[in-house]
């Protein structure tokens, strides 16, 4: 293992040697990666992708360095064959933040660049549809800029002094003229203001004109945001020719809860419960990713003790089982088997939630992980309970579901050959997790870049090769089985001992620097990019949400399919809106 990492480190050197004029090492304290001028970005990236094999652009984000009057765009690159990170950064002046768009090289950058434009106001030259993605078109300002203040703005950072002036509570609404969370820009006149036309949303690349030869009209069909099959408040605008989808525009942001802006005001420890609410099925995995990222910043002192490592793995794998059970149930819902399969899977979820409630005190929002371990030990008898689940209950239930569902004729005929994503497309579109692996790319972070103690367990990376809806459905069964294997090994070898490396604390002495921590969440790569300026609060806090980035491929999967398959394709990606919109 170590040997491979060494080779990769020399690869970073190789990049330096290959382009001595273009890149330089980021020498700021606590930072890593390579800096490049925006003019050289495109040739560098194209060479990295084609020659050095960095074909997976997993994360793209921006950071606003207000004191230095700079914006920085951060690219996190990996190789789809596995290995460590390569971080590329571009610094641009804050007054005119323009970088070339990478959509041509990495189509998976499309949504992330739109997000960076929406929230930070970074322009990506050459992006085909550079419009807002989370907020609506016409919203004033770019909220994640450091000098943009929200309406309920009082103090810079938590804990807020303005809530308790002289020991009395004060409602923040009282300061606002409308007593609500609303502010209008200077010079806004509601009488002369013209709203953005609705067509702007679904103005796709294909014109809605009649064809000359045949008298067929194209039709725009809107699904959502209130639609029972969109798994929340997601919206798809499909252009149809007959029943065939010729264009599709995903519209999101209906659950944009400003996770990152709030995260920058919280202290590091305060963000832990907020991560629960990202992907609200998998709060334990979300905790895991965030804890890993901050532990990277904090250094060796906060390395979790052995027992905590095992508890973390057990909880993360239980989460994966839970999430895939629910994904299977809801997918069958989407196919029309309304609620009966889901009832079976909800039953298993309840049993796993009982474990979470016992260890963390809450069913869904566990807030169980801490920097350097977990908050408390397993309660008495819990190990036995988990052992019974891992050896008896879960294997039996997954076999039962397998028997009922997998060879079901309707599932097979609606799934096979529908919504195909080839391996090349999946990698290009930065897909992650089951979506990527169902397309035949055996990329699992637990193997490709092991974190925590995953290198100790014996398990197979689930992979399927057709890339269609049916394979994305089957791979969830495979992954549950592998997770159960890990659970069995972990519960058998869990040692006794401490569960927290340090004393419980509210504040941590944070070194200056950046860290990118990632875990293989149930839905794909869940990454947290944290920048610390040495204070109690993160300077930048970015979430690389797998559901959000997996949706980049939705259009590709849907083109040429029938309108009735849209819902099945969306169900097979398994999105959670809390994570898509954050």
């Amino acid at each position, binding site marked *: 293992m170590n040997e491979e990492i060494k080779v990769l480190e020399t690869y970073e050197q190789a990049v330096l040697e290959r382009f001595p004029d273009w890149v330089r090492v980021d020498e700021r304290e606590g930072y890593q990666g390579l800096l490049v001028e925006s003019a050289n970005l495109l040739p560098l990236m194209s060479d990295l992708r084609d020659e050095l094999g960095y074909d997976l652009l997993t994360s793209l984000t921006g950071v606003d360095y207000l004191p230095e009057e700079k914006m920085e765009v951060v690219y996190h690159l990996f190789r789809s064959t596995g290995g460590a990170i390569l971080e590329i950064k571009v610094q641009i002046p804050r007054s005119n933040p323009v970088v070339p768009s990478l959509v041509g090289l990495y189509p998976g950058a499309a949504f992330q660049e739109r997000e960076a434009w929406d929230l930070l106001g970074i322009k990506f030259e050459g992006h085909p549809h550079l419009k807002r993605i*989370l*907020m*609506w078109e*016409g*919203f*004033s300002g770019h*909220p994640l800029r450091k000098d943009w203040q*929200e*309406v*309920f*703005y009082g103090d810079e950072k938590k804990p807020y002094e303005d809530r308790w002036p002289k020991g009395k509570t004060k409602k*923040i*609404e009282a300061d606002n*003229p*409308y007593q*609500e*969370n*609303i*502010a*209008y*820009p200077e010079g*806004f*006149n*509601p*009488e002369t*203001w013209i*709203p953005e036309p609705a067509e702007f949303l679904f103005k796709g690349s294909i014109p809605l004109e009649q064809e000359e030869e045949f008298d067929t009209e194209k039709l725009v069909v809107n699904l959502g*945001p*209130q*639609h*029972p099959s969109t798994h*929340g*408040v997601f919206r798809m605008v499909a252009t149809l020719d007959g029943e065939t989808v010729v264009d599709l525009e995903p519209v999101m*942001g*209906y*659950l*944009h*809860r*400003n996770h990152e*802006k*709030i995260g920058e*005001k919280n202290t590091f420890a305060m963000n832990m*419960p*907020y991560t629960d*609410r990202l992907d*609200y*099925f998998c709060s334990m995995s979300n905790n895991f990713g965030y804890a890993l990222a901050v532990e990277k910043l904090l250094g060796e002192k906060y390395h979790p003790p052995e027992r905590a490592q095992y508890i973390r793995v057990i909880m993360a794998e239980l989460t994966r089982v839970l999430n895939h059970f629910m994904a299977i149930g809801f997918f069958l819902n989407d196919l029309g088997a309304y*609620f009966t399969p*889901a*009832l079976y899977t*909800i*039953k298993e*979820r*309840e049993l796993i939630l009982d474990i979470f409630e016992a260890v963390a005190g809450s*069913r*869904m*929002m566990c807030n169980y992980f801490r920097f350097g371990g977990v908050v408390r030990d397993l309660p008495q008898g819990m190990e036995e309970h988990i052992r019974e689940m891992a050896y008896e209950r879960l294997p039996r239930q997954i076999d039962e579901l397998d028997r009922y569902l997998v060879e079901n004729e309707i599932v097979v005929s609606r799934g096979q050959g529908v919504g195909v994503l080839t391996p090349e497309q999946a990698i290009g579109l930065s897909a992650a997790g089951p979506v990527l692996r169902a397309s035949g790319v055996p990329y699992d972070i637990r193997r490709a870049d092991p974190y925590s103690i995953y290198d100790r367990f014996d398990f197979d990376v689930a992979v399927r090769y057709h890339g269609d809806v049916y394979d994305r459905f089957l791979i969830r069964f495979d992954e549950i089985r592998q997770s159960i294997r890990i659970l069995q090994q972990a519960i058998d070898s869990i040692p006794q001992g401490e569960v927290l490396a340090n004393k419980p604390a509210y504040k941590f002495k944070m070194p200056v620097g950046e860290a990118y921590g990632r875990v293989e969440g149930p839905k794909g790569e869940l990454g947290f990019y944290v920048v610390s300026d040495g204070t109690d609060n993160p300077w930048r806090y970015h979430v690389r949400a797998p559901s959000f980035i997996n949706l980049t491929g939705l259009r590709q999967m849907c083109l040429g399919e029938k309108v009735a398959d849209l819902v099945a394709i969306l169900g097979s990606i398994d999105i959670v*809106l*809390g994570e898509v919109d954050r």
Partner: protein
Amino acid sequence: MPDELNKPEYNIPPELEGTVAITTLDRIYNWGRRYSVWPMFFGLACCAIEMIATAGARFDLARFGMEIMRPSPRQCDLMIVSGTVTKKMIPQVVRLYNQMPEPKYVLSMGACACGGGPFKRGYNVIAGVDKYIPVDVYVPGCPPTPQALLYGLIKIQEKIDKESVKEVRWYQKEEDPGIPVPILGPDLIDLRDFPELLERVTQKEDQA
């Protein structure tokens, strides 16, 4: 015939107990409605998952006659606002509320829908759905447990019990105009605030 329908003042002969009920119009009207409250199948955020769990086998919403979740607002009696209401979503929520036929009830589920919750200071978050639509029952929690949601639903039933045909708003003469749907401008524009907003702008222009 359940005995709960009987009006206590009337004595029913022992041989007819359980088959005949002497009741009032209000009682039988409310009794029919309270056991067939159809919620809207409409999830906003995390709380929606607990709402689905409530419909699952362990908590079993069907015991209250509420298991028929309808995705269309035209067929619903109860809107469970399950999760954070954002500015981008509120036009749809208000529109859905307007589309529901009377009698209609709103249950605000979770801290976010009740008052913004942990996301209250967010720039895209509405600090409570009651700023736009009238809420009948608030269920706190983040997210509320299924038990808490069931308790809230029982409170809706109790509220239904207390209503009278003579006074309910859907049998009044004046027509309900509905709530104006907010518009997404540079920020959310609430049309009920429009006069005030205009006044402010003109004041500013006068000063300048």
